């Protein structure tokens, strides 16, 4: 098989309860590592330290998959997203779902599927929801122990060199934002989106592509975005990500209220369907969706959550 691929993605934490649904325990041991001595966050080894030989090659393949998932895991990606869209700095950035904070927490029980998940399974979840694998060429996430998943885990393990197993590191996941003073508002979110987000993500939320078809800025809703089962469709999760990381280079500049408002606006649009839903909208809503998402809500006269047909444009490479 070709270069493998796929990803880890982004949007990881799923739709059910909170962004971090693994049980947490101990305090972080050391926040150490190489350079950047004043940082309060763990820091991964520098890229230049990737070893040569088969181990290092797997790490490098994993990094490539992480950076350009639709290219290197094309068989299993059904939308336009790459892992690094939601895990900034290729999985290194604190408060952006850093891989080094997740690696030592697995195997872990997840409420989302009601059993203990290995990292391999966890990554498959990223494909299923955040990369909408059901619309991919293969129509499903990479099978267990697929080379794509192996390479991604080699990359994660390398970024996590020196961590303490089971430690809850600062900067893990996305920050949990307190509920805003005012109920989140689509209208305010829409106005903020136009001034602060549309420049890159497009006025219509469909991202920005090059002539090659590659996305430079990811689509936030519509057929090429994450599906209704991805963690990012949850307003609280998206608000935490946005507050800490958006716009690029200006993390932390939006108020909590603004982050909630714009997260609500972004997640009040149609996107690919929740692959867990077998029956009607109301059943899926009751079984898998809670107050932190708009699934089943009526917006512009239409109930959200019905899904969108896949755009096959991506499959061309």
């Amino acid at each position, binding site marked *: 098989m070709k270069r493998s691929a796929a990803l880890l993605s982004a949007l990881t934490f799923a739709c059910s309860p909170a962004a971090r649904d693994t049980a947490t325990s101990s305090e972080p041991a050391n926040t150490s590592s190489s350079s950047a001595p004043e940082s309060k966050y763990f820091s991964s080894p520098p890229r230049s330290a990737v070893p040569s030989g088969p181990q290092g090659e797997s790490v490098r393949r994993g990094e490539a998959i992480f950076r350009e998932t639709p290219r290197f895991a094309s068989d299993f990606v059904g939308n336009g997203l790459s892992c690094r869209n939601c895990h900034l700095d290729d999985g290194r950035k604190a408060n952006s779902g850093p891989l080094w904070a997740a690696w030592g927490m697995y195997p872990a029980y997840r409420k989302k599927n009601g059993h203990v998940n290995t990292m391999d399974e966890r990554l498959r979840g990223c494909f299923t929801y955040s990369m909408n694998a059901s619309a991919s060429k293969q129509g499903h996430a990479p099978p267990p122990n697929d080379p794509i998943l192996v390479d991604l885990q080699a990359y994660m393990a390398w970024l996590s060199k020196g961590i303490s197993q089971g430690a809850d590191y600062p900067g893990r996941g996305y920050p949990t934002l307190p509920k805003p003073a005012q109920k989140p508002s689509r209208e305010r979110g829409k106005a903020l989106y136009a001034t602060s987000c549309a420049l890159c993500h497009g006025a219509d939320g469909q991202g920005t592509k*090059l002539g090659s078809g590659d996305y*430079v800025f990811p689509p936030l809703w519509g057929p090429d975005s994450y599906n209704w089962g991805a963690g990012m469709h949850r307003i609280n999760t998206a608000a935490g990500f946005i507050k800490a990381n958006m716009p690029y280079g200006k993390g932390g500049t939006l108020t909590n209220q603004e982050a909630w408002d714009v997260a609500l606006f972004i997640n009040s649009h149609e996107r690919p369907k929740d692959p867990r839903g077998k029956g009607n909208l109301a059943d899926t809503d009751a079984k898998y969706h809670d107050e932190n998402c708009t699934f089943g809500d009526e917006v512009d006269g239409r109930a959200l959550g019905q899904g969108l047909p896949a755009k096959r444009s991506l499959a061309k490479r």
Partner: protein
Amino acid sequence: MSHSPTRVRWRQLVALGALASLVALVVGRAHAEEDRLALGKKLANEGNKRGAVACKTCHGEDGAGMAGSNFPRLAGQDAAYLETQIKHFQGKLRRNDLMSPVAAALTPEERAAVSEYYSALRAKNNAVANASLIARGKELAEHGAWDREIPPCESCHGPAGVGVAPSFPPLAGQHPRYVEEQLQKWKSGERSGEPLELMSGIAAQMTQAEMQAAAAYFASLPVEETR
């Protein structure tokens, strides 16, 4: 049911008329565009005799800019981006001893025409990159320095600096002295007006060495000559 011959003829006439207007419109548009490009070309090569010298004096006949100088490459830049930059010179959001008076002498029509003209040009990369800085620049361009909120340059300017129109200009083949000088101007506040103040915020975090390295890397990249 059939129509009377007269009615048919009447309809044909109307259809013909519509077609003629459409052709006139298309031809008219094409003429307007030709006129604009002709005006742009004239400005580029001769100036306007009202204070705007010929653009090619500094930006080169083919719009590739001048090797070793801080006169930027304009060929292949997005037309709307170029026009915005001229407006910024006119509005003093950008300042340059040579460019400011030229921009001030352009009418809105000339501004649009010359932007369109350079946007349509294609030229080889004539930038000179400091080879010893390229690797460090590539690292910054592809990975950024997120511990200081510096995103990878390519996350907005596109892979290999191809640019993402209309707001993020191509950097491939741009002259390193120019890029470095602009980054310094953003850092000092001398240049402003860009969307969301993104570039000034990022430049403020960059060191001099990083500016030089990033500029060298982008200067070393091939430009698309036939887009």
